[in-house]
């Protein structure tokens, strides 16, 4: 489910191809980027525009920015910008008018800022190796330097780059080159070091693990140290939860940390180079990547939107060269700072995004019934927005309207939710109908017994028994039903195929056809929670070609290998025994498919176990048929199988080469034909 954003690159490349053919959609013309979301299959797909560029702020008052690296928006709409290159902090209103300048002669290289509720400004200064605290008048109120604490570590420098502060004034400071984690400092006694917070973990690869087991201590000491990476940026929300982003950490690149420093989310999609993180008004999380992509997640880390992108010197509004800071104001407008273009880009949400946010807000506060209305509007605007379908399903589940929940979970491709809803639906059905079903079964059994007893006296069932006997004495029927015997007695079964002519090529082909049909049924009609293919997508022809091709190649290659390794079997015998080896699939699979439509995740092991049984049985049958048909020993059989697999590989390679050659020839002929047509037309 987790995949990198790179998929969207492929998607956008594909979309560009499409847009060459079709005229571009009007929505795209308004924004220079496309907006993506994640669908229920975990794929990144395009969706309608979530945010549109509103304006660009290039100057605060008359002051231009230089290498600006941080930005904060307060609740009353003031913009604080860390103007790093000019060693100052600028305060402007949301139209870009200058309100104040902080720390003109104090700061060295201010890279991170934080504004508390009482307008106290905290600045992390990398060059001065200090954290400055300014009061709202612009006076330096406090300074914090490297903590003088044994646990901080003597060898660790104090180069604060980013910081955030909680309600009681405790600072969380990211320091350059400090791999121990975020420095946590309380304001008491001129700065008390509380410890390290939210440390990233290292990962031990299997190879490293093996090395650790084998190597001596001395050799181990010489190995490259496995050091956790330092967080890149951080922010805090109203509840005091700290969010960090770390470059190159994949699933833990975005972390939501509790007071105890424990991560509680795992994002669906992640970027290699996250630069900044911020929280919105609905506990939604915004992550900005250095390349200018803006990710919006809900509070559980599910991706809602991705948009933005890199500006390739065309200076389009809404794209970035080096994005470095992000914040959100009270009206859900997003402010993004570009430290290379030295400007602030403002985005405003579209109507669609407002609806999503509204639904999110209601839904997260447990107002499921109220959230259904905005959700249905969202679905109306974009029925493929799976997150809305999922929330809708959850809302119905909470309301105990299970059939509706089932429908929406299926639309959202959410198997867990579907399984839960299905359990309830099934439970209700059982409650209503269990007694009836039991009565029917008892009645049927009693009826059958009576019929049997009656038959013993009057022979009423004799014609039916005779009919059955007639049917089974039919040559073809007996050949096909031989598979039941073959399944249970493979060794004798092979003797029957080889010496007694119990089967024919026709019956083997019929079995193969049955296998084919069941394979398709298994693929497309298996219960939703076991489905591996996308809903509503059918590829019958390639499936048939795939199965038939594989079967023919396998049986042919086995025959070829057997002829050179003293095998006794003919091609017909090997072909038939292989087809009959598929018998467990033909016999068991219908029941498994039926079962899979009646179970939830609770009982899913039943399906998995019977699947395992089926496939293990087939493997044993194939092994024994190769052995018995060719009169091999076990060792010879294993050797033959290995050789066969190798031959199959070579055959596939050959087919591939032929395919490439033929397609080249066809291309060539087409090109010539096109050329000829062109020449004739131009004459």
């Amino acid at each position, binding site marked *: 489910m987790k995949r990198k954003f790179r998929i969207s690159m492929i998607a956008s490349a594909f979309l560009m191809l499409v847009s060459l053919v079709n005229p571009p959609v009007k929505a795209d013309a308004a924004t220079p980027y496309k907006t993506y979301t994640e669908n229920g299959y975990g794929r990144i797909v395009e969706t309608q525009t979530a945010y549109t560029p509103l304006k660009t702020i290039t100057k605060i008052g008359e002051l231009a920015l230089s290498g600006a690296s941080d930005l904060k928006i307060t609740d009353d709409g003031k913009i604080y910008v860390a103007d790093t290159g000019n060693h100052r902090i600028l305060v402007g209103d949301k139209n870009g008018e200058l309100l104040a300048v902080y720390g003109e002669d104090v700061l060295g290289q201010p890279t991170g800022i934080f504004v508390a509720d009482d307008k106290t400004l905290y600045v992390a200064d990398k060059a001065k190796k200090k954290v400055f605290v300014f009061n709202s008048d612009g006076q330096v109120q406090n300074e914090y330097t490297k903590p003088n604490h044994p646990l901080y570590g003597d060898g660790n420098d104090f180069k604060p780059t980013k910081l955030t502060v909680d309600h009681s004034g405790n600072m969380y400071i990211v320091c350059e080159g400090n791999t121990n984690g975020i420095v946590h400092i309380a304001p008491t006694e001129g700065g008390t070091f509380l410890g390290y917070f939210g440390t990233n973990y290292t990962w031990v690869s299997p190879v490293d693990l093996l090395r650790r087991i084998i190597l001596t201590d001395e050799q181990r000491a010489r190995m490259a140290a496995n050091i956790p990476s330092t967080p890149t940026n951080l922010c805090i929300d109203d509840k005091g939860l700290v969010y960090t982003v770390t470059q190159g950490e994949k699933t833990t690149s975005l972390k939501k940390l509790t007071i105890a420093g424990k991560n509680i989310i795992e994002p669906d999609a992640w970027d290699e180079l996250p630069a900044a993180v911020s929280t919105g008004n609905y506990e939604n999380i915004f992550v900005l990547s250095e390349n200018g992509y803006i990710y919006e997640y809900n509070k559980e880390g599910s991706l809602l939107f991705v948009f933005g992108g890199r500006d390739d010197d065309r200076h389009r509004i809404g794209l970035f060269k080096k994005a470095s800071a992000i914040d959100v104001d009270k009206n859900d407008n997003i402010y993004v700072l570009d430290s290379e273009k030295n400007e602030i880009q403002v985005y405003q949400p579209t109507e669609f995004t407002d609806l999503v946010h509204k639904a999110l807000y209601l839904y997260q506060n447990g107002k499921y019934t109220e959230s259904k209305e905005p959700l249905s509007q969202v679905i109306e605007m974009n029925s493929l927005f799976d997150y809305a379908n999922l929330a809708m399903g959850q809302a119905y589940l909470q309301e105990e309207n299970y059939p509706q929940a089932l429908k929406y979970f299926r639309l959202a491709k959410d198997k867990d939710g579907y399984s839960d809803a299905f359990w309830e639906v099934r439970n209700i059905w*059982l409650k209503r109908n*269990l007694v009836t079903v039991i009565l029917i079964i008892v009645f049927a059994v009693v009826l059958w017994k009576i019929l049997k007893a009656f038959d013993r006296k009057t022979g009423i069932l004799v014609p039916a028994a005779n009919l059955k006997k007639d049917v089974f004495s039919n040559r073809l029927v007996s050949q096909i039903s031989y598979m039941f015997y073959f399944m249970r007695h493979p060794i004798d079964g092979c003797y029957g195929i080889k010496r007694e002519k119990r089967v024919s090529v026709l019956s083997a082909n019929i079995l193969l056809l049955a296998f084919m049909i069941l394979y398709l049924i298994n693929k497309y009609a298996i219960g939703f929670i076991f489905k591996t293919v996308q809903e509503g997508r059918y590829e019958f022809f390639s499936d048939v070609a795939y199965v038939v091709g594989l079967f023919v190649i396998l049986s042919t290659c086995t025959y070829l290998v057997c002829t050179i390794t003293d095998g006794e079997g003919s091609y017909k015998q090997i072909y038939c025994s292989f087809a009959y080896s598929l018998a467990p699939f033909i016999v068991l699979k219908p029941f498994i498919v039926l079962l899979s439509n009646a179970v939830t995740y*609770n009982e899913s092991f039943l399906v998995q176990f019977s699947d395992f049984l089926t496939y293990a049985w087939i493997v044993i049958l194939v092994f024994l048929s190769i052995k018995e048909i060719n009169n091999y020993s076990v060792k010879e059989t294993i050797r033959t199988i290995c050789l066969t697999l190798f031959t199959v590989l070579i055959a596939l390679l050959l087919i591939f080469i032929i395919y490439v050659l033929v397609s080249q020839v066809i291309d060539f002929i087409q090109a010539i034909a096109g050329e000829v047509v062109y020449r004739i037309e131009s004459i």
Partner: protein
Amino acid sequence: MKSGRKEIERLEKSNKSAYLFLAPYILLFTAFIVVPIAIAIILSFTNFNTIQFPKFIGFLNYINLITQDEVFMQKVLPNTVVYAIIVGPGGYMLSFLLAWALSQLTKGPRTVLALIFYSPSLTSGVAMAVLWKILFSGDQTGYINSLLIRLGVITEPIIWLSDTRFLLPIVIIVGLWSSMGVGFLAMLAGILNSDESLYEAAAIDGVKNRFQEMIYITIPTMKPQMLFGAVMAIVNTFQNGAISVQLAGANPTPNYSAQLIVNHIEDYGFIRYEMGYAAAVSVALLGIVYLFSTVSKKLFKED
């Protein structure tokens, strides 16, 4: 003359002495098996809290079991089936393979090893507490935690016996370990009893290795013992329950993660004192065990 013949006929056909010899067994079997089962079946149709007189409520307990008891349907039954599917056939095959391997040894080592393999099923309660609880101890002094931390696989100890992800697999491992019970001894006896001349005959007919001996001679000759072993394995696995409660240290186990049917019966019977419902669950268990042993009898009796 005529009456004399009748007298002889009567004596010959009567089974008086046979019944006399059977009497002790029948008495004990009735007192300790038949009567309790009958009472359990009767109780399962009542609401009984061990203090007041049972109140007849018809099939309500059974209907509740299937439709109302979500813990039973969502946790207990799946757990029990998973446990039985793995520990039943797994333990059965393990017993057979071990019995077969042991039969290849000489008498001295064989007896000692058989005793060692058999001992877990005898001493399970004590051995479990001493051995497995130390191995799976939840702090970093536990053997497995300590090993994994030293190898760098985990960074902080896992509380194995309270973690809902690991409890059932651990119970299954311990179950496999203690599954070498009476069935194992019966199979060992069966293998040792098989006719030596059969193996000689087979060797003349072209049997090349031990594996073929096992497939073609050993298993067919010891079918009765195999059947006994299979039935015992199934009955035992469904009746196992002590393991999970002892390992987790509480009934119900954390989040019902390793709750088996027997634990569920104990939970309702001896903790909540809902004897009627507990009786209904045990009758359901009886049905399940009967069903599975019938199937296994069919499997092994055929041919």
